């Protein structure tokens, strides 16, 4: 089984990289880009039957810094 963890900066936390990407898109002539937020995706290859709660625990203890980041988990 696989778990896909999507990590994003929390709302309200300024994302300077997203702002730079937004500005670069504007420079390429793309209009109407109101905002860009950059995050990361972590793909976990897990033993079958791994508990979803265990994936949450991995996120809380290492994969995600709860001070600045939020996450979602999709189990495939």
């Amino acid at each position: 089984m696989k778990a896909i963890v999507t990590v994003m900066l929390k709302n309200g936390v300024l994302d300077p990289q997203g702002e730079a990407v937004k500005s670069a898109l504007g420079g390429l002539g793309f209009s109407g880009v109101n905002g860009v937020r950059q995050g990361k995706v972590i793909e976990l290859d897990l033993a079958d039957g791994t508990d979803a709660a265990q994936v949450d625990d991995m996120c809380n203890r290492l994969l995600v810094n709860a001070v600045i980041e939020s996450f979602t988990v999709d189990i495939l």
Partner: protein
Amino acid sequence: MRAAVVVFPGSNCDRDMVLALRESGADVTTVWHKDAELPQDLDLVAIPGGFSFGDYLRCGAIAAQSPICRAVVEHANRGGYVLGVCNGFQVLTETGLVPGALMRNSGLKFLCKTVGLIVATENSAFTSSYAQGSEIQVPIAHHDGNYFVTDAELTMMRDEDRVAFRYSDNPNGSADSIAGVLSSNRRVLGMMPHPERAIEAQMGSADGQALFRALVGQTIAA
């Protein structure tokens, strides 16, 4: 005073840290990140700068889970002194020993220059020989020094006088221009600037020396 400097793969300025502490009179050893225990009767652990584990995942995140860091957290919980500089500050936030997080600099550039720091409190073993409000010159060298903290925690830290240093001219977008913060027991200091790179006039500034002398002196007295 007995001090240990932690060395990770990718640490730098670890030897500068050893030198700064030794010249201030401390008995200094180094410890490797895989060590599970700190030397006995230790007063201070210093976590140096660098790019531990290549900054993978987040700056300091992997280092914060290393065996030695569990021992550092126990040392801090016993009331021991901990100094984290630059990457060491990032490691301290990841362990939760000091609040907040360090994000990419607001200008997105790696910054390497000497900056002015305002001493925000003289009420700590680290800052007691500076005059509150005075400005010192200390180098920074970081890509991720943009200090983030929630409004509630920022208010709490101001109320508890736990901001140690502020930038005189905020270079990286840090909240409230914060360059260094103290733990609630005031014995853990995390700071982005490098005081160990400013201990002799020939280094461009000797303003960092007072931090080490105060720290080593205070713990001998205690």
